[in-house]
């Protein structure tokens, strides 16, 4: 089953394998050595410099831990804080969990192929850490668990591996922020995430990216959803970044399993964002929805969406809308694949500008052209995400609002 030798062998063979999409990152030009940081007690997190706190807040990490069920905080390569307040929910560093608990091995590299490309290979061969978050059977959390992956050291390649497990009948919400310290410019983040949503469980995972201008980011995530399970995957990225390429994939393997992907992207000049979403609907009654909203202020954005219907009575929809505000390219590539009779799949895609008719309508209610435009843009970005607890929903709205102010 779990063979480190086999994984290592595969990884070694893939160290030079380029990814299918995105520009190639020369990993050898980055440093992967460990960076020691002191473990912080709860009150010490609150005492970190204001400027850094601000970066963390922008990524959804609340240093006061208010309204949170638990925290995982990794700085560079080192876990600086990790705890859970919520009964039935475990939060552990992955390296420690692999040593302590045999069950963790059942999930490690089970969904993401270690030899997918050089990034997955590197994440195996030079793993720093990452989190294991597990909701025990039947446990329900309302407050989200927060996880923050923070980069501070210039020119670092951060390799993390996360395992998220929602056991049968559980409900788990995670808000995860990735950010760089204010002075940092260049680095790489490679993040492997494997999600396991068991029978009747519900998992929401909200990822907020807050990078630096010369950062390259390569997340690799795959989810597996069993019968009646629900997986909600939200992604927000509105800050400058050199390049991001990701194509999160979900396999709906049980009857009536559901997955929803929502992404809100604002691309700034010099950014190359290749962001996709792929959902396999493998059994009866499965449902999938991908909603992508992107704005280009001069970035090159590629939105890929791929829905694969392999069983009858499935329903899947892909909605991809792009606004070109000031230059750049938005390339929308929706793809639908029906393999049997009885699938119901659709997509709508649009790339355009802010409609003058809408601006005029709002101006006739008494606001200026600039206010009208930003109101429309804000509306465009406020995706109605279903199935989230109210506090998390507000959190996402706030994150969008905050980034919106800077981005527009």
């Amino acid at each position, binding site marked *: 089953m779990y063979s480190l030798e086999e994984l290592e062998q595969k990884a070694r063979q893939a160290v030079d394998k380029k990814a299918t999409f995105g520009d190639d990152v020369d990993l050898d030009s980055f440093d992967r050595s460990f960076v020691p940081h002191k473990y912080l007690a709860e009150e010490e997190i609150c005492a970190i410099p204001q400027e850094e706190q601000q970066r963390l807040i922008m990524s959804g990490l609340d240093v006061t831990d208010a309204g949170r069920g638990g925290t995982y905080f990794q700085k560079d390569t080192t876990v600086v804080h990790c705890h859970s307040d919520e009964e039935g929910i475990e939060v552990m560093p992955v390296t420690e969990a692999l040593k302590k608990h045999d069950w963790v091995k059942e999930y490690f590299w089970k969904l993401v192929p270690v030899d997918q490309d050089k990034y997955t290979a590197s994440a195996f061969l030079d793993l720093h850490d990452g989190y294991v978050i597990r909701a025990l059977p039947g446990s329900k959390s309302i407050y989200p668990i927060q996880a923050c992956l923070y980069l501070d050291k210039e020119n670092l390649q951060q390799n993390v591996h996360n395992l998220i497990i929602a056991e049968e009948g559980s409900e788990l919400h995670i808000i995860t922020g990735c950010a760089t310290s204010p002075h940092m410019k260049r680095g790489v983040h490679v993040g492997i995430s494997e999600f396991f949503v068991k029978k009747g469980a519900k998992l929401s995972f909200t990822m907020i990216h807050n990078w630096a201008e010369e950062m390259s980011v390569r997340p690799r995530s795959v989810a597996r959803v069993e019968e009646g399970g629900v997986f909600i995957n939200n992604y927000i990225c509105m800050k400058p970044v050199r390049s991001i390429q990701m194509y999160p994939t979900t396999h709906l393997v049980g009857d009536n399993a559901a997955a929803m992907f929502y992404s809100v992207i604002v691309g700034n000049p010099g950014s190359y964002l290749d962001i996709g979403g792929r959902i396999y609907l493998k059994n009866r009654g499965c449902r999938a929805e991908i909603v992508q909203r992107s704005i280009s202020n001069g970035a090159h954005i590629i939105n890929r969406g791929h829905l694969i219907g392999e069983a009858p009575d499935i329903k899947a929809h892909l909605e991809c809308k792009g606004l070109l505000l000031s230059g750049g390219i938005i390339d929308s590539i929706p793809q639908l694949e029906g393999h049997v009779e009885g699938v119901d799949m659709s997509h709508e895609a649009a790339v355009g500008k802010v409609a003058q008719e*809408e601006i*005029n309508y*709002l*101006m*006739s*209610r*008494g606001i200026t052209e600039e206010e*009208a435009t930003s109101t429309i843009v804000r*509306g465009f970005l406020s995706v109605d995400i279903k199935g989230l607890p109210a506090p998390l929903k507000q959190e996402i709205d706030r994150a969008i609002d905050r980034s919106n102010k800077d981005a527009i």
Partner: protein
Amino acid sequence: MLIIEDLQVELAGRMLLKDIDLEIRPGETHVLFGPNGSGKTSLLMTIMGYPQYVVRKGKITFKGTDITHAPLNERAALGIGMSYQRPPTINGLKTRQMIDICARRKVDAEEMARSLNFEDFLDRDVNAGFSGGEIKRSELLQLKAQDPDLMLFDEPESGVDIENMALIGNTIAQVLQKESPKAGNAKPVARQWKERTKMGLIITHTGYILDYVPADKGQVLYNGVLACAGNPREIFQCIGRLGYEECVKCTV
């Protein structure tokens, strides 16, 4: 007071309105009749300030200010508002938020929506999937929140079912201060009438609105020319019997 003098308006190089003269005094509501394509909506959009309607000649004055070339939002700030026939959908903007924009402050949207039976729509995106009648109620609600002094209504009855017609008609009468005077008011009726400030310009095809709003004046817009100012009911009857073309002859 709204004064339009010798107005000529072009849209995409085509002359739509010619030699328009119109005067609406505080407290007055006018009704605009005319066949499809005669320029009624163009006149309203020009008064509101839509930039694609280019004024080639003439002048629009509102409350003593020349607004002929003022942008939309400045006219709104001066107290002009419009209820549209087919307004655009604004995705992601809740009707509730739109009401705050109209009112220029945070308002009790529920309270305001109650009389229009529109509470259930407050958390829906503005105009998204609204039926004809729902659009009319949404527009009226926005106008109520904005509370302008000059209100332009583009076919407020179109697409409205019988049940909601009374609701819409009575609300328009109320915002235009054209409700029947209430007994028990300390001021005499004549004084109440005299103190009215709101002005209205209503486009109608069906004339239903006349059953609810006692309009002061009717006008027919025909081929871009305003004709036949007079009693709105008489004009409407004339159009019904003889058609627009015959009816405008009376003044030409």
